[in-house]
C-alpha cells in the first residue's frame, strides 16, 4: 500500500511561511541588532517556557499539515485525504462511540432501553471501545486507570531522567546550555509525562480522556486536530497581508503628498468598517462562491480548506490597517534620519533606499505586531465560529467545539468536557503566546529598551 502526497492551499501557504520564516531568521541573525534581541528573549525563563509550549503546538500542526491520500491496488485514485497526525492518532479516530460519554467513563452518558431476561430495562449501556478489556468495568475501572496512569508516569519520568542526563552532559561542553539551568530538561520531562500518559491511557482498550462528543468522536482527538486550524488562523492571517502593510506603509511614509493621502484614505475607510461585520459580509459572499464551485472541488476537505484560506485573507484585510499606520509613522521619522539623507545624497534610487534602508528598520514593528496579534486571532476564531461565519463546520476547530457544546449547557447534568478540552487547549496556546509576545516586544521596542 502506497500513498500520494496532497498539497492543499493552506499546506502550500504553511510551507511558504516556514521557508520565508527560515530565510528571514538566517538574514536577521547576521545582524547584531537582532542577535541582541534574541539573547534578551532567551534570557527570560517565562519566554523560553512559552516558546517550548508553542513549539509543541507547532509540531502538532506541522504533522497535521503533511497530507496524503492512501493508494492501494483496489483503489488507485486514493482514499480520503489523511494527515500524518491522523495516522499517529489512528486508534483515537477509529474508536467512535455512539454518543456522549464523560471523561474516563466506561458507560454511555445517556440511558438506553435494552431487552434483558425478557424484560425491558433502561440502563446506561457499556461503551464499545473504552475499557473494553475489563470484565466488570464498574468495579475494575478505577484500579485500571490508576495502573495506567502510574505506568505513564513511570515512562515519562524515565524519559525525563534521560533528558536531565543528556542536558547535563551537554552543559559540560556548552556554556549556553548551562545557563538555562534545569529549564530545558524540566520542560522535556513534563512533555514526556504528558505524552506517556496520553499513550498509556488511550492504548489498547483505553479511555476517552476528554470523553466523547455528540457523534461519539473522541474529544481529545478533535482537540488535537483543532491545533492546526488555530495555528493557521493565528499565523497565516497576519502573514498573508503583512507584505501589503509594509509596502503601503513605507510608500505612504516615504513619499508623503498625494500617495500618503490615498493610502491613508484607504486604510481609514477600511478600518472604519466594523471587523466582525466586514468578515460576516465577506463570508456570506464566499459561501455563495463556494456553492458554485465545480463538483470535483466540492470534496469536503478541499472546500473546507478553501474556506479556511479565504477566512485568513479576510481577517487579514481587517487587521493590516493598524500595522500599516505604525509603519507609516515610523518611516516618517526614519526619512529624516542622517543615513537615509546620506543615501539620498549618494544618488540612490527611491526603490533602493526603501528596500535597503527603510524596510529592514521597520521589521521590528512587523515582528511585534505579528506576535502580538497571534493570540487575538486564535480567540477571534472561536467567536466567528459562534456567529456562524468561521471555518467550515466539518473542519475541527476549537470554535466549532465550543459552538456545539454550547447547545448542551442546558442539559442536566451538564455536558462539560467538550468545553473543558477546548478551554484547556486554547489557554495552553494563548497564554504562552501572550507571554512570549510580551517578551519579544520588550526585546525589540526601542522605547522600552531605553528605560
Amino acid at each position, binding site marked *: 500500500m502506497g500513498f500520494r502526497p496532497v498539497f492543499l492551499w493552506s499546506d502550500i501557504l504553511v510551507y511558504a511561511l516556514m521557508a520565508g520564516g527560515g530565510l528571514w531568521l538566517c538574514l536577521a541573525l547576521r545582524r547584531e541588532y537582532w542577535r541582541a534581541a534574541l539573547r534578551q528573549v532567551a534570557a527570560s525563563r517565562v519566554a523560553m517556557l512559552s516558546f517550548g509550549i508553542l513549539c509543541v503546538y507547532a509540531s502538532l500542526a506541522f504533522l497535521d499539515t503533511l497530507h496524503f491520500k492512501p493508494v492501494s491496488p483496489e483503489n488507485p485514485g486514493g482514499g480520503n485525504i489523511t494527515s500524518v497526525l491522523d495516522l499517529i492518532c489512528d486508534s483515537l479516530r477509529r474508536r467512535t462511540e455512539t454518543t456522549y460519554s464523560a471523561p474516563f467513563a466506561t458507560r454511555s452518558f445517556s440511558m438506553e432501553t435494552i431487552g434483558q431476561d425478557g424484560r425491558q430495562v433502561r440502563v446506561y449501556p457499556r461503551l464499545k471501545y473504552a475499557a473494553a478489556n475489563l470484565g466488570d468495568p464498574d468495579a475494575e475501572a478505577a484500579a485500571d486507570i490508576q495502573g495506567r496512569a502510574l505506568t505513564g508516569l513511570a515512562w515519562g519520568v524515565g524519559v525525563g531522567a534521560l533528558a536531565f542526563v543528556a542536558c547535563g552532559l551537554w552543559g559540560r561542553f556548552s556554556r549556553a546550555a548551562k545557563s538555562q539551568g534545569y529549564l530545558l530538561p524540566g520542560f522535556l520531562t513534563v512533555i514526556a509525562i504528558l505524552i506517556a500518559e496520553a499513550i498509556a491511557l488511550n492504548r489498547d482498550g483505553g479511555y476517552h480522556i476528554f470523553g466523547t462528543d455528540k457523534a461519539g468522536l473522541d474529544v481529545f482527538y478533535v482537540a488535537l486536530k483543532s491545533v492546526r486550524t488555530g495555528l493557521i488562523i493565528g499565523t497565516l492571517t497576519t502573514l498573508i497581508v503583512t507584505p501589503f502593510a509594509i509596502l503601503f506603509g513605507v510608500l505612504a511614509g516615504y513619499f508623503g503628498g498625494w500617495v500618503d493621502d490615498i493610502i491613508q484614505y484607504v486604510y481609514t475607510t477600511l478600518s472604519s468598517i466594523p471587523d466582525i461585520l466586514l468578515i*460576516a*459580509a465577506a463570508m456570506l459572499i464566499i459561501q455563495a462562491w463556494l456553492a458554485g464551485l465545480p463538483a470535483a472541488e466540492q470534496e469536503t476537505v478541499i472546500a473546507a480548506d478553501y474556506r479556511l484560506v479565504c477566512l485568513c485573507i479576510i481577517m487579514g484585510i481587517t487587521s493590516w490597517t493598524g500595522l500599516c499606520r505604525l509603519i507609516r509613522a515610523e518611516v516618517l521619522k526614519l526619512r529624516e534620519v542622517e543615513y537615509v539623507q546620506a543615501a539620498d545624497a549618494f544618488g540612490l534610487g527611491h526603490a533602493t533606499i526603501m528596500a535597503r534602508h527603510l524596510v529592514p528598520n521597520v521589521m521590528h514593528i512587523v515582528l511585534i505586531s505579528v506576535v502580538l496579534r497571534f493570540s487575538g486571532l486564535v480567540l477571534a476564531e472561536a467567536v466567528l465560529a459562534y456567529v456562524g461565519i468561521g471555518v467550515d463546520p466539518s473542519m475541527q476547530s476549537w470554535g466549532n467545539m465550543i459552538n456545539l457544546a*454550547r447547545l448542551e*449547557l442546558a442539559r442536566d447534568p451538564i455536558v462539560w468536557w467538550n468545553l473543558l478540552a477546548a478551554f484547556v487547549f486554547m489557554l495552553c496556546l494563548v497564554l504562552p503566546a501572550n507571554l512570549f509576545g510580551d517578551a519579544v516586544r520588550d526585546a525589540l521596542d526601542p522605547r522600552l529598551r531605553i528605560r
Partner: protein
Amino acid sequence: MISYIIRRCLYAIPTLIGVNVIVFALFFFVNSPDDMARVHLGQKRVTPEQIDAWKRERSLDLPYFYNNGWRRLGSLAADEAENKAELATLGAGTYALAVDAPSAATEAQSCNLRVQCSAPARLSLPADFASDGTLALPATTERRRFVFQIGPGDDEEPPELTLSFALESPAPTHRVVLEYKGDIAPLSRLTQTIFYQRSVKMLFFSYGRSDDGKDIGDEILKRMWPSLSIAVPVLLIAMFVDIFFAMLSAFYRGTYVDYWGVILCVLLMSISGLFYIMGAQVLFSKILRLVPISGYDDGLHSIKFIALPIVTVIIMGLGGSIRFYRTVFLEEIGKDYVRTARAKGLSEFSVLFVHALKNAMLPILTSVVAGLPFLFAGNLLLESFFAIPGMGSFTLDAIQRQDFAVVQAMVCLGSFLYIVGLVLTDISYTLVDPRVRLE
C-alpha cells in the same frame, strides 16, 4: 474651535462615502443579486422565476446605476421540448425580447423562437425574423436581444403576444424574457436604481426593510435601549474598577504584587469571551440560581436580567484594560513633574493619586470617548447568550439568517459610529489638552 469642528466633520464625509462604495461593491458586485437569491433560497435547483420573484420582492430587479426605463413584463422558460406562452402587452410602445444566455454550467444550444401577435398588423419585428415571426438562433452562450415595436391602435384591449420557444434538450436555464420600455422621469432614472435605493439612502439613515418586512430604522430605535442599558453601566463601573486596580499595580510597581498582577491580567486576557459568558451563566444562574439565565424586561424589572451581563462584560475586559492603564500610569510616573512632586516631599500616595492620575486621565478619557458611539452597537455575543433584544442580537440574527439588507445597514451604521468616534476623539483632545493646537 467651531470652525475646527466643522472642518473635522467635513473630512469625515469622504470616508463615509468610501465605506458606502466598498459595501455596495461587496454586496452587489462581487455577488450579483442572482447569487444572493440562490444562497437565500438555499435549494440546489432554483428556477429563474423564483429568483425573479425574490429580486422583485426586495426591488433588486432594478439596474445598478442608471435606469433607462426598460422593465420586465414576463418570461418563458424552456423546460419542455416545445414551450408556448401568451404574454399580455401594455399596448403601443417599444418592446424587447431577450434570449437569456444559459449559465456557463449548461451547454450552449441552438433554438427556435417564434413570435405571434393577436393584432398582427401592429407588430413590426426586426429584419432577422422571418415573415411568419420565426427565428432560428445558432448555439451561443451570449445574451441576445431583439427590439421591436407595437404600433398605435386600439389599446382598450392591448394585443397579446404568443411566444414559442423550442430547444433540442430543454433546460429551464434557457429562457426568453419580454421587456417593455416605459416612460421614466429624468430624476427617477438615477433614483430607481439599486445604487440609490440600497447605498445612497443609507447615507441619510434610511435603511429600508429587513427580510421579515420590518422597517430596519424603527427596529434600530427600539433595540438601542436594551443595548444602552447594559453598555452605559459597564462603561462607568469598568472605568472605576480598571483604574483602581491599575493604580494599585502601579503603586506596587516592581514588587511581586505587580508582577503576579500582570501575569493574572495576561491570564484573564488569554481566555475566550465565550468561556466567561458560559461560565457566568452556569455558575450564577444554574448552580447558585441567583439570577435568571437569560431574558429581558422593560423598566426596573430589567435589573435582575442585566446584572449578570454587566458583571460578565466587566470581568471580560478587566485583564486588557488594567494592563493598558498600568502602562499609561507607568509612563506618567517616569516624567519630570512627578520627580519634582516627590522632591517636594509629597507622599507616594498623593503623587500617584493627585498628580499622576490627573494627567494619565487624558489618554484614558480619549480612549473612552472613542468608544462612546459603540455603546449603541451592542455586544454581539453577550446579547445573544443572554437573549437581550438589543442591537447586537439583531445583527447576529441577521448574519445567521443571511439577511443581507440588515447586515448592510449594520455595516453602514457601524462605520458611521466609528467615524463619529474618531471625530469625538480629536475634538476631546483639543478640549482637554491645551498643548494640542488647532490647525
